[in-house]
Every structure is written in C-alpha cells, then in structure tokens.
C-alpha cells in the first residue's frame, strides 16, 4: 500500500472524523501507566478485520480476491499503581480469553508513541503437505481405545470394534480396492464416523435399550426413550386430532413444522451450546444463536426467521469461592453469553421475544445456553409443499455462505464428553451474523425462485453431517473436498470434512438451475461452490481431487451403530424435613424472596435484546404501567396484514430434580403451557419442544451414580409422555445434551438434570392477548387453582438452606379443565390481567401483578383455595403448579365465574376464589388466615427489592 492509500483508508472507512484520530505506523496512546493490547489468536474469526478488508477493496478499487488481510486488536489504557503481576492478571483474567486471544502488557516507560505497538499478524500455519492418513484398526483393545482418545473421537471400545470388524469384511475390502483404498481406515472416514456416531448427533442414550428398575419392585425394558416417550406421545396426540391434525413435520427435519394458517407454516427449534460457552462464553453463545437460526432456516424448503427465545442457566454471578481449574467466573460467563447472544440475535434482525435466566451453583460446571428460533414459510412454493425434503440422484451438492477453516473441529465429539483438561481449543468458534444474514437474504430469494431442491445447515460435524444426512434422500454422494473454499491453506481433507466453521448451508441443486443459482449468489455477494453430486450409489464417497479419502456404505454410516444397553435404577432420595418457624416479618420475607436470583427482575438483560424488530411485537417481555413488569409469554404477529398471532413460552425448573425428575419435567411442561394460557393461548393449537440437558447418565468409573441419573432421565421422559398427552400438546422437535459435567483433578460438578420445555401456539386474534399487570382499581383479584403443601425444592426452602421431600405435582386433569375455561374467559375479553404463579408462588405473583400495574391490592389469604397448609408463609410461597392470579372487572365478575364453574356437574369443580381487590392506594396488604393483617408493603418498596439484584 502507498502512504496515500493508507491515509485514504484511515481517514475514510476506518475512522470517524467527528470524534476520532488516526495514526499510521505509530501509536496514539498516552497518559497511562499500563497498556494492554488484546488481539485474536491465529484462525479465530475477526469480523471487524474482515469488514475492513472488504471496505478497503472497494475504496482502493482492488479486486476482492483476498490478496491482503486485515487484523484487529484492542488497546486498554490503565492508570494507577499496579505491579507487573497485577497488570498481567488483569489481562489474563479480565481483558483477554487466553483460549482465543493473545495479549501484550506494556508499562509506560517501555512505550514509544512514535513507534507504537509492533503489529502482530495471527497467521495460521497449516500442514505443508495435504495428506490423508490411514489408521490400522486391526489392533488390540487397548490400542483401539487409545486411538479414540488421542483423536478426540469420543467413540467407545465397542464402537471402535465395530469399525474394525467392518473393515475386516472381505466384501468391504473388495469395494474399497476399486476406489484405491486399502484395508486400513482413513482419517477422513474415522472422523466422519466419529461425528455421525457421536452422542451429540446420534442421541445414543435416548435411543438405547434401558432396563429400568422403578425401585418399587417393578422392572421394565424400554426400547428407546425417544421412540416410546417422545415420538410415541406425539403420535397418539396426532391420531386423536385426526383430520384436525395441524402437525406437518415432526422429528424428521432440523426443526418441527406446524400449520399457522392455510397459507403459512411455522417452524421452531431450540438447541443448546453449553460446552463451547463454558470455554469462550461470547463466541460459544454467539455461535449457539446463529447456529440454531440455521435449523429452521434449513428445515423443509427453508423458513424466514421470525423470533428467538433464549434461556440461560448460570451459577450465581456473585460467586465468591475458589474457582476450579479452567472454569471462568460465573459473572464473566453471564456477561459473555449475554453479549454473544445479543450480537447474534440483534445483528441478524431477529427479535428476541422472551427468555429467562436460571441460577444454581452447579451450573458452574457447565452453563446451559439454550437458544431457540422460530420461522415462518409459505405452505406451498411453486406448487409444492414446503415442509418436506427431496433430493434426486444427479443433483449437485452446493455449499454456500462462509468459508471453511479449522474452527469448530471436533465440536460434536467434544460436546459428547465432560469438560476435561484436554478439551480442544479448536472446538470454539466465533460466529459472524452478517455473513449469515447476507446468506439468508440470498437464499430466501433463491427459495422463492425455486432455484434449489433441498436445503440443510452445516452444524455439528460440518459437511460430514450435512451431506451425509441429506445423501440418504438420494442414496449416496460423491464429494470433492478440493473444491471447498478455505479461509486459509493447509487444511487436510478430514479437517475440511468435519470443520464446523459457521454460516454455511448445504443445498441440493438440479443441474439445470445451477447457473441461475450461482449467478444470483454472485450478484448478492455470497459465495457458493459446487462440491460434488448426490448419487444413488449407496456410498458416502469423498474425494480430494482424484484421490478417495472416504468410501463408506451409507447403511453402515447411518445404521451401523447398534443400540446401547443401559441400566437405570430409581431410588427416591430422602432428605431432611425442614424445621424453621414462620417469619416474624412477612413483608420483609416477601422482599427477600423478590430479590432472589431466580425471581428478581431480568430487565437489565432483556433491554439489551431487540425484541421488536420486524414490527410484529404484541406482548413484549416487559409490560405494565412503567414498561417493567415480567410478562409470562410473548405474542407476535408474524404477518403484518393479519391479526393472527403466535404465542411463545418456556418452562424450566431444574431444582425439582433434587426430589424427582418426573415432577421436574411435569412442572416444566405445566409452566410453559400455563404461561402461554395466561397470555391468551388455548390448548387447541399448542405444540412443544423438549430440550434435555443432563449430566452423564451412563454408569462408569467416572460416573458411579449413572444408574440413578439414568433413572432420572427415564422418569423425566415418562412425564413428557404423560403430560403432553394429557394436555394434547405434542412435541414437534427436541434435543438432548447428555454430558454436562466437569471433571478435572478430583473435582466433579454435575448440573442438575434440566428439561426446558418450550411451546409455540397460534392465537387467532392478537387483540385478545392479556398481560400480567393489574389494570384498574376496583378490579377483583382471583386466585385460580389449588395451593398445596408442596414446599420441596421451593425458593422459600432454598432461602432457608433446605430442599425437603415434597415437590409440586401436576394434576393434569384439573389443570386442563382450568386452562380450557380460562382460555374461554380470556377469549371473551373478561380478564383484565393474568399472571402465572411459579418460583416464589402466590406471594411473588401477587406482588408482581400489583407493582407492574402501579396499583395496590387488598388480599384475604383465608380465601385462597388450598389444601393441607397451616402456615401463611407456606400458603404464600408454595410453588404448587397450575395456578394463576387473575384480575377481573366487577362488570365481568358474573360471566367470568360462570365460565370457571362450568356446566358439567359431574366433574369436580375448578378451584378458584375471589381473594381481594385492586386498590388505587399503592400498598400490597395481606390479611392472614387468622384474620389479622399479615403484611402491608408499598409497591415501590417491593418493586425496588425485585429490581435491585441484577441491575448492573
């Protein structure tokens, strides 16, 4: 570059003349004691550098052929008395993430402003020579295990033996000979099989044969939890719906598809990205959200993305004990994950319509980062239904979007094991939402023009999964990795095959349309490359130029893995029954509860997500008189010219697993459903997604309690079966992440078994939606549903350091009747506000309803429908399920009560009662069961307690 060119660039796109200075080949920093420079390590995505390069090409009229590269780093200037060691610690523990970033620390006296910082170019040094290695599997057991461990294959000895036996087959040897392969397996084949057979991709535990000992003398054999409990329940529900069945595609594609209306279909998927987020919270979480975006985008014929919903589980951000090795502080994980998902969601132009945060110290071992995305697509395009996929032999394999680098190699296998000392660095990637946005803009146009036949995403396992899976539709493929566009030279074929570099979709394209497709891609500035073709050869055939690097029978690749056999044994834990007196000051107790991490306001996080882009926002995550109350579910209008809408809600309650994962799962399902009902949904058109995050449930030396953990999984699945059928809410897709443990040195941390249940529903007219804030003084306050003595694993017990033994149980039959009646009442416009009771129970729900509405309440606890409770604190803080606080105008009282009482006298009545009134006076006043005033607190004080905890 000439100096003139550099000046043009610096003064142009690289600086803002109004507020910035620039310098070329020098330094700007002065007036500091320590200077920290942080930059990326080689191979880590540098989005700013990439954009700068593109801007420079345009400005200087250079051709966009990557003849030069641009890299960025940040400088932090510190002032104050600090020693070298302290300055280094700040760099290592606060400013840089050693895994992906390098840093330099310079004291004032060593700094020369004229010279500045010497540039550091993070160049990737790849293999000098591209080669395919052959590995001899005809070795003893010990050596087989060693191969799996050394290569991070996460394959068991038994699986390695299956590979060995496959290669011993004379017929296999014969067919390999024809393509120039010997009797040894290639690195490409081995890696590809490891990806395809990984727990992450194959869900071996969910598909295992499990002998389950219920602990009550009954033992049963379960042939795949996935088949029996998850798919089985959906099948039953669909059969019962008959002609009205609105499910279109379940469990077969990247996401589930249901009908929205005659002309449009909805697509929904939730995924986790826990392991990468533990190592690099920002990059891991960013990749999580842009990764799940590609699931609905790559479902059927491709959907436009219309919402995100995110749920994060962290250890408390104020954690002050010693951190185990390789674990980042929870506050750092919290901030990094929040920011990663913020950038991924906001920059993609997808509204984050709701979500939640859950805290438990055990999420120190691995945080859970659930990211969900919904999409919408025309029901038909060019006369064909959009929710199915097809590929014909002869169709071209085309990859589009980003390029391939070493990032994300071994992501799938790495997440199939616990976080350990040797967890690979390359497993972490940083997403680039703008490259993905450009790609999705392009592909939606290509879709509407009918330019491709099939679309799928490149996620875990990269091309090996995306092509390997879609090749089943035609019966084989022939792929040339030499054609693949790379970020930098030096990748071996196996690396190209399994790299999880982001922002890539794989398509099948009819050769007659390829020119039009590539022309549109070029016009819109998106890279697209033909990598080979789909065949009906029965083989997964991968070449590098003329040399075959993998040649596997399709049937072996996908069905060669036998079912696992596992044992599960349930023994209900017995814990100490708590003994503590009721609080002397109930107002103070309520404030303490409102301040708890799992209850308090999440506004500081919510506001950082764009929840309104696309213009269809109806019920926002924050509602009420000051726009700061916690709404139960989100409602959006995906099509701006109709009032038809979508409701989205989540349910999650990992604490109940400490007592019984069956009830944990039941409560999660109930919470998601009742959140949706509270906002205006009905059970008639509501679908679910199950997303299991477990700790390793396979009995082994490192997991001596595997049989118990597996029993927890069995029980949770039984609850999914029971409750989805009871509510008629079918699961349409789901996901599991089974190895959420940390094991380094002698420390083992396992997360509490967690089911996130997410629902998506159709709402016929969004103008019927209801929010949770109290509306008018004089409205009657109702409690709907029965409060029981179910304090186990409640926030109230946790506050006192107890777990207890009786967690909430869901009575689905009663709940369903309530939900049906309530949906009718809301549909008729009779309900002013409705709020579900969850963490912190009735006390919290009453307080939130009042302060979100800026109004007071007078409540008589004696009128709350309850059973078996003799303490006011239990009545206020029991977390019994299927309950609401609703407010109703006196004008609608009669009609509302009639609907809830119902006409069918044969059924036991719905438990509900009017418990008080909304007041203009801004106090929450509770009369206890004894008839005395139990507490009287100003709503401002209650709200302040609720808001203070996470207001950083």
């Amino acid at each position: 570059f000439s100096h003139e060119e550099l000046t043009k660039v610096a003064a142009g796109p690289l600086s803002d003349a109004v507020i910035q200075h620039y310098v070329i080949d020098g330094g700007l920093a002065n007036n500091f004691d320590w200077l920290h420079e942080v930059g990326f390590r080689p191979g880590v995505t540098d989005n700013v550098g990439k954009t700068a390069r593109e801007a420079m090409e345009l400005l200087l009229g250079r051709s966009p052929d990557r003849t030069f590269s641009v890299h960025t780093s940040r400088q932090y200037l510190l002032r104050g008395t600090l020693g070298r060691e302290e300055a280094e610690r700040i760099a290592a523990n606060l400013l840089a993430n050693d895994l992906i970033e390098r840093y330099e620390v310079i004291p004032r006296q060593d700094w020369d402003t004229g010279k500045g910082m010497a540039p550091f170019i993070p160049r990737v040094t790849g293999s000098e020579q591209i080669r395919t290695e052959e590995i001899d599997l005809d070795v003893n057991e010990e050596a087989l295990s060693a191969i799996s461990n050394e290569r991070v294959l996460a394959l068991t000895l038994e699986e390695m033996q299956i590979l060995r036996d496959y290669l011993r087959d004379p017929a296999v040897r014969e067919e390999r000979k024809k393509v120039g392969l010997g009797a040894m397996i290639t690195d490409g084949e081995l890696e590809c099989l490891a990806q395809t057979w990984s727990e992450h991709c194959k869900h071996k535990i969910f598909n295992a044969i499990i002998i389950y000992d219920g602990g009550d003398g009954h033992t049963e054999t379960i042939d795949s939890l996935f088949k029996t409990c998850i798919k089985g329940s959906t099948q039953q529900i669909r059969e019962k719906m008959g002609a009205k069945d609105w499910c279109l595609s379940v469990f077969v594609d990247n996401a589930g598809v249901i009908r929205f209306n005659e002309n449009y279909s909805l697509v929904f998927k939730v995924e986790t990205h826990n392991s990468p987020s533990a190592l690099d919270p920002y990059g891991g979480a960013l990749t999580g959200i842009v990764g799940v975006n590609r699931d609905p985008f790559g479902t059927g014929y491709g959907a436009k993305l219309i919402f995100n919903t995110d749920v994060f589980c962290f250890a408390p951000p104020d954690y002050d004990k010693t951190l185990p090795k390789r674990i980042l502080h929870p506050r750092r994980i919290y901030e990094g994950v929040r920011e990663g998902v913020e950038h991924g969601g906001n920059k993609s132009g997808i509204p984050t319509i709701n979500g939640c945060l859950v805290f438990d110290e055990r999420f120190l071992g691995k945080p859970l980062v659930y990211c969900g995305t919904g999409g919408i697509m025309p029901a038909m395009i060019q006369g064909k239904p959009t929710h199915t996929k097809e590929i014909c032999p002869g169709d071209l394999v085309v990859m589009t979007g980003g390029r391939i680098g070493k990032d994300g190699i071994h992501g799938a296998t790495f997440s199939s094991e616990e976080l350990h000392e040797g967890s690979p660095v390359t497993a972490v990637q940083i997403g680039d939402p703008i490259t993905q946005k450009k790609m999705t803009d392009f592909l939606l146009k290509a879709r509407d023009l009918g330019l491709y036949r099939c679309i799928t995403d490149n996620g875990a396992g990269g091309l090996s999964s995306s092509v390997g899976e879609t090749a089943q539709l035609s019966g084989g493929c022939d792929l040339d990795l030499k054609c693949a566009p790379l970020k930098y030279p030096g990748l071996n074929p196996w690396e190209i095959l399994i790299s999880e570099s982001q922002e890539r979709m794989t398509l099948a394209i009819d050769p007659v349309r390829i020119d039009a497709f590539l022309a549109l891609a070029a016009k819109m500035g998106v890279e697209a490359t033909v990598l080979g073709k789909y065949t009906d050869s029965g083989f997964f055939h991968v070449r590098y130029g003329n040399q075959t690097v993998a040649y596997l029978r399709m049937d072996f690749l996908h069905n060669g893995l036998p079912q696992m056999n596992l044992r599960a044994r349930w023994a209900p834990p017995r814990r100490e029954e708590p003994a503590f007196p009721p609080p002397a000051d109930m107002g103070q107790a309520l404030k303490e509860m409102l301040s708890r991490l799992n209850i308090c306001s999440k506004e500081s996080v919510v506001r950082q997500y764009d929840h309104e882009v696309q213009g269809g926002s109806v019920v926002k995550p924050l509602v009420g008189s000051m726009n700061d109350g916690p709404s139960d579910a989100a409602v959006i209008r995906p099509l701006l010219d109709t009032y038809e809408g979508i409701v989205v809600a989540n349910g999650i309650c990992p604490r109940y697993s400490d007592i019984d994962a069956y009830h944990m799962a039941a409560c999660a399902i109930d919470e998601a459903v009742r959140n949706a009902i509270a906002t205006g949904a009905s059970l008639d058109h509501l679908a679910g997604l199950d997303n299991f995050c477990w700790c390793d449930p396979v009995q082994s030396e490192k997991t001596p309690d595997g049989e118990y953990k597996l029993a927890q999984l069995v029980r949770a699945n039984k609850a999914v079966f029971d409750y989805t059928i009871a509510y008629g809410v079918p699961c349409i897709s789901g996901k599991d992440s089974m190895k959420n443990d940390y094991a380094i040195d002698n420390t083992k941390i396992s997360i509490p078994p967690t089911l996130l249940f997410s629902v998506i529903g159709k709402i016929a007219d969004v103008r019927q939606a209801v929010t949770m804030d109290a509306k008018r003084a004089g409205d009657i306050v109702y409690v709907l549903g029965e409060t029981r003595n179910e304090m186990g694993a409640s926030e109230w017990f946790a506050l006192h350091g107890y777990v207890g033994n009786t967690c909430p149980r869901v009575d689905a039959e009663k709940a369903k009747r309530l939900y049906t009646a309530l949906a009718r009442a809301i549909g008729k416009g009779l309900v002013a506000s409705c709020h579900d009771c969850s963490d912190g129970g009735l006390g919290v729900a009453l307080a939130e309803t009042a302060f979100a509405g800026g109004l007071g309440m007078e409540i008589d606890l004696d009128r709350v429908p309850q059973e078996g409770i003799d303490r006011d604190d239990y009545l206020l803080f029991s977390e019994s399920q299927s309950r609401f606080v609703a407010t109703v105008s006196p004008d609608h009282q009669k009609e509302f009560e009639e609907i809830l009482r119902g006409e069918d006298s044969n059924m036991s009545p719905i438990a509900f009662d009017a418990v008080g009134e909304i007041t203009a006076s801004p106090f929450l006043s509770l009369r206890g069961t004894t008839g005395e005033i139990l507490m009287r607190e100003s709503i401002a004080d209650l709200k302040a307690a609720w808001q203070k905890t996470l207001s950083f």
Partner: protein
Amino acid sequence: MTKANINKIVKSIVITGNGTNCEVEMAHACRLAGSDVVDIVHISELLHGEKRLDDYHFLNLPGGFLDGDDLGSAKAGANRILHATIRGTEEKLYDQMTRFIRDGKLILGVCNGFQLLVKLGLLPGFDGDYLTQTVTLSFNDSGRFEDRWVHLAVNQESPCIYTRGTKYLYLPVRHGEGKFIVRDPSVLARLHKEGRIVLQYSGADDGAPTMTYPANPNGAIDAIAGICNDTGRIFGLMPHPEAYLHRTNHPRWTREDLPEMGMGLIIFQNAVDFIRSQLI
C-alpha cells in the same frame, strides 16, 4: 387509468442488504401510508443497474447493522455507497443519491439509516455540501444496546415535512450507537438556529428535552433524536416510527385506550402526502 393519474403514482423504495433488517415493516409503513408502489430493493440490484433510485420519489433507509457496524455504525455501508460503481458504468450509487436530492425527493433514514445519512455527510448537509461529515452518532453513554420506548418533543419551527401536524411522538429506540455528537459548537448552534433539530428526547410529563437517563437513552447532546436538511426533505432519526404502526405495538396497549393507528405512521403519511401534492 388516465395518463394524469399514472403520473400521480407515488413510488417508494426501501433499500436492504448487508445487514439491514427493518425493511419489511418500513415497506409496510409506506403501503399503509398510501404509497402506490413500494419496492424492497436489495442493494445489489441497484449496483447491478437493475433498479435505479431515479425511478422513485421516496427513499427509505431502514434500521439494521450494515456490515455488522464493524467499523462503527454504518461506516462500511457509507463507504460502499460512496465508492461502489453501478455495474457497466462509471456512476457511483452516491451520484444517484445526490441527483435524488437535487430533484427535491424525500429520504428517510431510521436508526442505522440515520447513522448512514450522517456518516455520508448527507445530514445535516449545510450549504448544499452533502459530503462533509459534521455530526456523528456514537456509543450510548450506557455502553449498551438498549430497546426502550422514548418520549419525543417535535420542533414546531422545523422545516421537516415528515413531522407536520405533530407535537409529540412515543416510539421505541433500539440501538447501541445513538449518541448524537457535533464536530464543534458552531454546528450545534446552526442546527438550533435553522430549526434542523426535529426531535428531542423528552420527559413524559412536561415534554421538555431532557439529558436524564433513561428518558434520554444515550446521552445525545441537547437530547437530539432526529435532524433534517435545510429543505426538510431529508430526515434522520434514531427512534423507529415503523415499529409503531398499530396500537398492539404500544407497550401498554392492554391497559390504555389508544387509537387503532400507531403514532409512527404519521411520518410516512406526511411523506406520501407531500409527494402527492408537491412532487408529482
């Protein structure tokens, strides 16, 4: 349709691509406002000469993250408009834009679109100089992206054609770089003197401009939320009028009596009415 009527067709263009993401609701706003033709056009279609700005009356630059805002909000986007040539010609996209302005046509930039106008130098565009940047939009004082609704006082002395007949607006902001900054005090003085400051963040009660967070969500100098050029035909603002087109967009629609039509629509109606009565 008679020939005279054909000439009365109002044509709007909404530009998208490279990270723009509010194009659908912006186009919807134009349609609701009565624009007869509304095209969402990918910038590559302009750069390939398939579409031309000259064929439209109303140019909409929607919100989003042009090129990820990686070099500062809309910086790389501005660079593209200034330096990319229309395929097969010597013409830059910027040339079409200046012609568009010279013809007295309307340009509305919202959020990232406002940032783009400012970084191109199109706003405030003193003395017909549409290339020199004199103001900027930078990181919020909070250091964060924030989504929140704000009260806006409308300058009654402004030449802005988009805000005619309005005194007050309530709209969401959704940005991380919305803090309005001027190059020097003379720029600010001139903006005031010429009535170019169209919108200011204000308190809910008194409507007076405020520097208090969060009513002023980003620390913008003199609470500036939107400015226009001397003719009032180029208008940029950080808040999103296209995000409030229907009462159910309002954060408190379940508790307040609101008109069916959202407050943001007036901006687009004024634009379309102006074109119909003055430009065609």
